[in-house]
């Protein structure tokens, strides 16, 4: 602190005048503040309250402070703060970015924390600790939550159109249903997904690619770029067919717009994570009452129902992080407490799925009004989808890839869709364009694969 002030004083008269104005800002930093990055939403705030419970008991003068980073702002904050050599103490980000950071060698190994919280024993069925971010045999992530992207439908609209139970649907059934609804209910979209140049678009599109059997890089073959396969092209062609029954503006949709669309009753079916149900419960009871979650419609040939799943863990920047020891101990404190973990999950029900068995069985979750009212759907959201969980950094569960985060930064998957839908390129040509982008990314970041 003293050093900081003397350096400021040396900056000359103009800066000194400004320094006086900034005095409140200097005063604010007197206690030690460990910054905690998380997604927008209340849950990171809840977790931070738990961290502070530890700090008050065992590290007086230390305070954890939550900073909410919108999903697509992660890179701006990450890059500026790493460039500044002042990273946050703890980060919860989308898993592909965590995988990338792990491979960059920027993260602290966390085997000790995972041992201290008996993560391996407590983890819900279907997930392994390694899925959250293990690179070359070292664990870099402490399991925090999971969120799978699923298929949501309004049962009343489906009934009215005389449609069958979506639990058994294939792609073809989805397409037929979207068409039938559009005809039956003018002004309502049959189906909605995000096709904007953003993360949500990437995620939604990825699911279709995997269901058809395609993938971007093959971990089994040293991450060779295999994007331009017939399966990928088939997936994009199917999306183009579906687009006829989506709102035209789906090409600019991101997370928010998809949920808005569903919660305001402008679509009968959509793809989304648990949040759509939570928002409907808050804002649109009639929609909420008829809302059901299902596994994604299966590809007719492969039968796959992959779901883009954020397998989200806490990661700790290794360098320039003066809070490593405290952050680890505080993490263990919160995560050893079933009560805190249940509070975490319950704070935005059913958006952040419980990762521990004791947490999943906690009364705060079991007796949550949404769980009581929508048991079947919430079971799909919390456990049913787990066998189908993968993500762009863990494609088809074949292995962790550090390249996906970079590709999400450039939104390559959704750009391919946009070239096809907006520029009228053929699916094949658009996919070939995407293939070149992915190949560039691989070449540029070969050192990560090493």
């Amino acid at each position, binding site marked *: 602190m003293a050093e900081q002030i003397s350096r400021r004083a040396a900056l*000359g*008269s*103009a800066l000194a005048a400004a320094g006086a104005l900034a005095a409140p800002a200097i005063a604010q930093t007197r206690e030690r503040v460990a910054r905690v990055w998380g997604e927008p939403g209340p849950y990171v705030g809840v977790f931070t309250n738990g961290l502070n419970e530890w700090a008050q008991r065992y590290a007086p003068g230390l305070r954890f402070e939550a900073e909410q980073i919108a999903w697509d702002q992660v*890179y*701006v904050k*990450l*890059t*500026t703060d*790493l*460039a500044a*050599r002042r990273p946050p103490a703890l980060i919860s980000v989308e898993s592909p970015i965590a995988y990338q*950071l792990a491979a*960059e060698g*920027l993260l602290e190994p966390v085997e000790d924390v995972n041992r201290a919280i008996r993560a391996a024993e407590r983890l819900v069925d279907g997930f392994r600790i390694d899925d959250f971010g293990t690179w070359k045999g070292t664990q870099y992530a402490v399991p925090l939550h999971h969120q799978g992207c699923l298929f949501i439908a309004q049962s009343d609209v489906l009934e009215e159109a005389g449609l069958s139970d979506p639990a058994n649907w294939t792609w073809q059934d989805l397409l037929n249903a979207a068409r039938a609804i559009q005809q039956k209910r003018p002004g309502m979209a049959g189906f909605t997904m995000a096709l*904007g*140049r*953003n993360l949500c678009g990437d995620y939604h599109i990825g699911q279709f690619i995997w269901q058809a059997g395609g993938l971007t890089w093959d971990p089994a073959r040293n991450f060779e770029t295999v994007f331009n396969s017939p399966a990928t092209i088939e997936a994009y062609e199917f999306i183009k067919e579906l687009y006829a029954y989506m*709102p*035209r*503006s*789906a*090409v*600019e949709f991101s997370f928010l*717009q998809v949920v*808005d*669309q569903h919660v*305001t009753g*402008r679509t009968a079916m959509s793809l989304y994570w648990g949040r759509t149900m939570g928002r409907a419960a808050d804002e649109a009871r009639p929609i909420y009452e008829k809302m059901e979650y299902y596994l994604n419609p299966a590809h007719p040939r492969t039968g796959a129902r992959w779901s883009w799943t954020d397998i989200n863990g806490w990661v700790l920047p290794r360098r320039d992080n003066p809070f490593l020891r405290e952050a680890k101990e505080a993490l263990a404190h919160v995560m050893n407490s079933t009560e805190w973990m249940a509070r975490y999950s319950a704070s935005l029900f059913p958006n952040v799925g419980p990762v521990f068995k004791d947490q999943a069985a906690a009364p705060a979750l079991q007796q949550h009004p949404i769980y009581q009212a929508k048991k079947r759907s919430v079971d799909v959201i919390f456990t049913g989808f787990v066998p189908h969980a993968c993500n762009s950094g863990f494609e088809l569960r074949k292995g962790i890839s550090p390249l996906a985060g*970079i590709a999400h*930064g*450039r939104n390559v998957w959704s*750009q391919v869709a*946009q*070239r096809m839908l*907006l*520029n009228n390129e053929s699916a094949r040509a658009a996919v070939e364009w995407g293939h070149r982008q992915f190949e560039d990314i691989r070449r540029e970041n070969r050192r990560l694969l090493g």
Partner: protein
Amino acid sequence: MRFRLSDRQVGVLFMLPLLLAVALFLVWPIVEAVRLSFVRYNPLRPDDQPFVGLDNYLFVLEDPLFWESFRQALVWTGVSTVAQAAIGVGLALLLHQPLRGINAFRGLLLFPYIVPTVVIALNWRWLFNAEIGIVNHLLLSAGIISERVAWLSTPDMAMASAILLNVWKYTPFVVIVVLARLQTIPTELYDAARVDGAGALRRFRDITLPQLAEVLAVVVVFRTIWTFNKFEEIYLLTRGGPGTSTYNLALYAFDQAMANLRMGVGAASGVIMLALLLAGSLLYIRLTGFGREDRAA
């Protein structure tokens, strides 16, 4: 007894803060930007910054997206500037009329200029939301359109919406400047023309327009340079989308540096923008004879 400075010392002393500030806030960032444009700099690993010569510039010049952004920036700038100038002059002429209550209109019409870009971009995204926006609702119920307009979802409409926002926000700039100039045109000129039997249109063409010509040229150059480099309006309204149809060079530079983790490439595109801007300012200086002491005063 107070320490007395000589006249000369006062002059130098008064300049010192400026010299310090210019060095720190203008020269240094530009030097730093130029340096960055010659290194490979992945912001995730700030310690590793190898010199790569002109690689970043070659990367930018070979990138189709750069040229696409460049072309789009021309459309965005050209249409915005012309629309702002035309509407701005029209409004200024109306606001110059000696009518009762005209001051209230002046205040209200200048208001968009002070609205923070964040506020207006977010409001527009909601107003112009194709599905739940009030604009489509009003136009539909007034029978002006028969189906929802996808304001931000097709490349052309998104560009049009972005331009509309820019025109909305910055036309007041033109109005302020033109209005200030109009107030200095001697009324005798108009009286004489009226005596000669010149109609309103002729008076505008023969008196107003020539008097405005110089200030208009200045305004157009200024608006062109600023609009060409605008970042926040587009970033907050469309994020360059759909596709990359509303990218301009500022967005390109930002995305290269941040999303693509190529700080050096971002800096190189910044330096290219800077060079274009220098050319623009030279044009401005030529147009106005700016800085030629004998002409001013």
